[in-house]
C-alpha cells in the first residue's frame, strides 16, 4: 500500500478466448452490452417511428386507405383504413415504445454502459453478470410489449400513461391481454433498469481510476450517475403501480376502481411520481453528453463546470417534487397544484444555467462543426424551444387551456426528439469509432442533420398552433370537429413533413450500417478529445486497460497554453502534476 501506481491486473487478462455465444450474445463485457442495447433500441426506435407514420396518415388523411395498409388484418385496418380501435393502440404503443424502449435504453442502456467504465478508467462494470441480466430483462420486456399487437383484442389502448380506471377494466378499454402484457412488460423493464442503475452507481462510486476525483469526472458521467439514481428510485414505483394495475385486471383487486372504493387518481399520482423523474432520465444523459461534445467542438473548457454539476443535481432533486404538473386538470387538490406550479417554475433555473453554460462554452470558441457538434448545437436550440413551452405550461391557469392538446404533444417532442434524439445522433456519431473502430460518414451525417432539423421543425412546430386552436391529442378523426376543420391543411402539412422526417432517418440508419462495414477506419483519438476512452485503441479491447490509467486533470482542458496541441488528455502527466494521493484503505 505504498506506491500510487501499483499494478492493477486486468480481471479478464489470461482468460481463454470465448465462444461466439459468450462473447457476443450472453456477454458480460460492458461495451458489448452497450452495443447490444444500441441495436435493440434502434430497432424499437424504428418500430416507434413506424407507428407514428400510421398515426400521421390517419390524422392527415382520415378515412383514406393507408398505402400498404392492406396487409394489416381486418381487426386493425380493413382495406387499409385505420380503425379507431387500432388508432388508439398506435398512439399508446408509439409513446410506450419511444419512451421506454427507444430513448431510455439508448441514453441509459447504451451510453451508461459504454461510457461509465471507459471514462472512469475501470476494467468493467462493478457487476458484469448483473449487467448482462439487465440487458436481457430489457430485451424480454421489449418482446412482451411487442407481443401486444399479436394477441386477441390487440395492444394496450389506454395511452402510454395508462390512466385508470380505463386501463384497469378490460370491459372499458376493450383490450384484455394487450393491457396485461403492457403491465408485465413494464415490470420487467423496471427490474432491468434497477439492475442497470445499481451497477452504474456502484461503478461510479467505487471503480474510478486513481486521480479520477468527483470533480474530474466528465459531465456525461455525472449526468449518467445522477440519472441512475433517478432510475433506481423512480422505476420501482412504476413497477409497483404496474403490478397493482395488473392485479386489478387479473385477480380482481380494486386499487384503481372507484366503484369499490379505489382511487383512480392514485394511479396518476404513482405514475407521475415515477413519470417526472423519468422525464429527467430521458434528458439528463443527453445534456451530459452534449456538454462533452460542445466542449470538444468549441475547443474550450466547459464554461462553469461546477455549476453544470450542481445544475444536474438540482434538476434531479427538484424533479421529485413537480410530478403534479401533469395533473392540473385531474381534479387534484388545488393547493397541491399551486405547490407543484411553483416547484416546476423553479426547475427552469438549473435548466437555464445549463443552456447559458453551453452558450458560454461556445462563445469565442474555436468552433469545429463536425457532425456531433452540429447535433449538439441542434439539441441546445431545440431544448430551448421545448423548455420555454415547458415554463409556459407550468402555470396552472394556462395549462388548463392547453392540457391534453397538441401543444403538449409539440412540447414533449421538442424535448424528446429535438432534445434527446438530436443529442443521441450526436453521441452515436461521436463514440461510434470507439464502439466499432470505424467512423460514420461525415457528409451523410451532415445531410442527415440539416434535413432532420428542417423536417423536424416543420413537423412539430405547427403542432403548437394546432394545439392552441384546441386540437385534442389522441383524437381519431379531426375532421369530425367543426372548429378543427380549418386546420386540416396544416395537419396535412405536418403529415407530409413527418413522412419526410421519417425518410430522413433512414439516411442515418443506412449510414450507421454502411459505416459498420465500409466506414473509414478510425484512429485512436479521431476527435482530439481528452477523455480516458480515447487513450485506448478503436474499437476498445476487451477488459479495456492492461494497466489502469492515472488521471491528472479534468476532462475539458482544451487549448491549454501548457501544451502545443489544443487538447490535453486526462492521463498525460505534465512536470507540474502531482501523483494522486490514494485514500488509505480502512484496516489495511
Amino acid at each position: 500500500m505504498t506506491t500510487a501506481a501499483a499494478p492493477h491486473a486486468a480481471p479478464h487478462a489470461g482468460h481463454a478466448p470465448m465462444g461466439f455465444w459468450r462473447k457476443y450474445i450472453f456477454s458480460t463485457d460492458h461495451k458489448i452490452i452497450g452495443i447490444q442495447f444500441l441495436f435493440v433500441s434502434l430497432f424499437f426506435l424504428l418500430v416507434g417511428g413506424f407507428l407514428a407514420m400510421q398515426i400521421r396518415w390517419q390524422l392527415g388523411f382520415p378515412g383514406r386507405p393507408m398505402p400498404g395498409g392492406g396487409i394489416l388484418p381486418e381487426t386493425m385496418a380493413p382495406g387499409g383504413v385505420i380503425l379507431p380501435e387500432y388508432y388508439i393502440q398506435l398512439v399508446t404503443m408509439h409513446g410506450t415504445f419511444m419512451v421506454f424502449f427507444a430513448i431510455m435504453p439508448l441514453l441509459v442502456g447504451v451510453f451508461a454502459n459504454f461510457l461509465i467504465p471507459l471514462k472512469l478508467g475501470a476494467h468493467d462494470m462493478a457487476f458484469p453478470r448483473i449487467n448482462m441480466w439487465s440487458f436481457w430483462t430489457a430485451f424480454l420486456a421489449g418482446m412482451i410489449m411487442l407481443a401486444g399487437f399479436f394477441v386477441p383484442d390487440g395492444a394496450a389502448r389506454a395511452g402510454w400513461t395508462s390512466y385508470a380506471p380505463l386501463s384497469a377494466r378490460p370491459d372499458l378499454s376493450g383490450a384484455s391481454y394487450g393491457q396485461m402484457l403492457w403491465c408485465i412488460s413494464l415490470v420487467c423493464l423496471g427490474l432491468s433498469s434497477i439492475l442497470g442503475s445499481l451497477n452504474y452507481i456502484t461503478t461510479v462510486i467505487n471503480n474510478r481510476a486513481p486521480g479520477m476525483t468527483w470533480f474530474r469526472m466528465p459531465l456525461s458521467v455525472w449526468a449518467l450517475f445522477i440519472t441512475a439514481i433517478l432510475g433506481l428510485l423512480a422505476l420501482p414505483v412504476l413497477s409497483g403501480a404496474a403490478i397493482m394495475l395488473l392485479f386489478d385486471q387479473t385477480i380482481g383487486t380494486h386499487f384503481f376502481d372507484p366503484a369499490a372504493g379505489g382511487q383512480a387518481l392514485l394511479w396518476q399520482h404513482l405514475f407521475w411520481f415515477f413519470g417526472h423523474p423519468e422525464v429527467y432520465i430521458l434528458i439528463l444523459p443527453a445534456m451530459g453528453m452534449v456538454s462533452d461534445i460542445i466542449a470538444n467542438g468549441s475547443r474550450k473548457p466547459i464554461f462553469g463546470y461546477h455549476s453544470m454539476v450542481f445544475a444536474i443535481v438540482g434538476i434531479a432533486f427538484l424533479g421529485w417534487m413537480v410530478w403534479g404538473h401533469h395533473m392540473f386538470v385531474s381534479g387534484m387538490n388545488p393547493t397541491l397544484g399551486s405547490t407543484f406550479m411553483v416547484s416546476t417554475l423553479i426547475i427552469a433555473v438549473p435548466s437555464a444555467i445549463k443552456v447559458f453554460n453551453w452558450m458560454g462554452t461556445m462563445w469565442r470558441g474555436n468552433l469545429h462543426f463536425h457532425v456531433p457538434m452540429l447535433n449538439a448545437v441542434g439539441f441546445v436550440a431545440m431544448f430551448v424551444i421545448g423548455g420555454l413551452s415547458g415554463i409556459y405550461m407550468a402555470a396552472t391557469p394556462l395549462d388548463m387551456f392547453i392540457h391534453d392538446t397538441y401543444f403538449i404533444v409539440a412540447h414533449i417532442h421538442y424535448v424528446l426528439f429535438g432534445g434527446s434524439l438530436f443529442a443521441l445522433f450526436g453521441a452515436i456519431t461521436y463514440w461510434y469509432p470507439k464502439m466499432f473502430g470505424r467512423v460514420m460518414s461525415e457528409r451523410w451525417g451532415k445531410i442527415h442533420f440539416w434535413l432532420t432539423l428542417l423536417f423536424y421543425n416543420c413537423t412539430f412546430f405547427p403542432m403548437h398552433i394546432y394545439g392552441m386552436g384546441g386540437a385534442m391529442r389522441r383524437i381519431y378523426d379531426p375532421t369530425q370537429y367543426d372548429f378543427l376543420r380549418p386546420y386540416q391543411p396544416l395537419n396535412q402539412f405536418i403529415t407530409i413533413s413527418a413522412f419526410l422526417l421519417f425518410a430522413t432517418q433512414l439516411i442515418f440508419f443506412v449510414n450507421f450500417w454502411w459505416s459498420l462495414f465500409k466506414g473509414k477506419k478510425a484512429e485512436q483519438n479521431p476527435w482530439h478529445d481528452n477523455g480516458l476512452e480515447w487513450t485506448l485503441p478503436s474499437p476498445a479491447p476487451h477488459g479495456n486497460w492492461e494497466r489502469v490509467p492515472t488521471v491528472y486533470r479534468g476532462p475539458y482542458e482544451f487549448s491549454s497554453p501548457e501544451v502545443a496541441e489544443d487538447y490535453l488528455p486526462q492521463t498525460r502527466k505534465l512536470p507540474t502534476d502531482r501523483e494522486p494521493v490514494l485514500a488509505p484503505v480502512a484496516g489495511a
Partner: protein
Amino acid sequence: MTHAAVAASAMRPPFPAERGVDVYNKKLGMWVFLGSEVMFFTALIGSYVILRFGAPGPWALPGKVLNIPVTAFNTFLLICSSVSMVKAYAAIANGDQKWLKIWFGLTILCGAGFVAVQAYEYTHLIHHGFLPSGYRDGSELAELAAANPVMYGQAVAGLYGSTFFTMTGFHGFHVTCGVISMLYLYVTRVLPGKYTKDDHAGVEVVGLYWHFVDLVWIILFTIVYLI
C-alpha cells in the same frame, strides 16, 4: 499486504477510490438495491395508507379477519431469523466456521418457517372467504360482515383484500427469494467452508437483504395487522 493482494480480495474496491464510500462493491451494490426496494414498498405501502385514508367506510377492526396470534408467531420467527443471521455474520467475522454453519442454518429454517406459516395463513383466509377482491359471496366472512358491517369493514372489503394480499404477498415473495438465495449460499459456500475471516462478503450482503426484509415486515405487521 501488497496492493495486488488487496485488489484481489472480494471485500474491497478494486482500487481505493478517492473520497468513495470505502465499502466494497457487493455491499455497496446491495445498499443501492435496498434503496430501490424502499421505493418499491413505498408504492405498495403508500397506496395502502392513501387508500385507507380516503376509504369510503371504516376499515375492518384488527383481529376480526386476520389471525393476529399466528402472525405474531410469524413476526417472532422473522425476528429470530434476523438475529441468527447477524450472529452468523459475527461468527465468521471472528473466523468461527462451526457457529457460522449453525446460525446460518437456523436463519434458513426460520425463514422457511415464516413462508410456511404465511402459506398456512393464506389458505386459511381464502378458505374463510377473504380474497384479493374482498369477501367471497356466501362465505363465512361475508355472512359475518353482513351481520356486522362496521366491525368487518364491509364497505371497503375490496380495498382491504387488495392491499392486504398485495403487500404481504410481495413481502412473502421477498422472503422466499431470500430463503432460496441463502440456501444456495449455504450449500455452495457455507458448508464447504469457503467463507473466511477476511472474505465473507456473501454473508454480510445476504444478511443486509435479510434484515431489510425483516424491517419491512416490522412495518407491515404493525400497520396491516394491528392498526
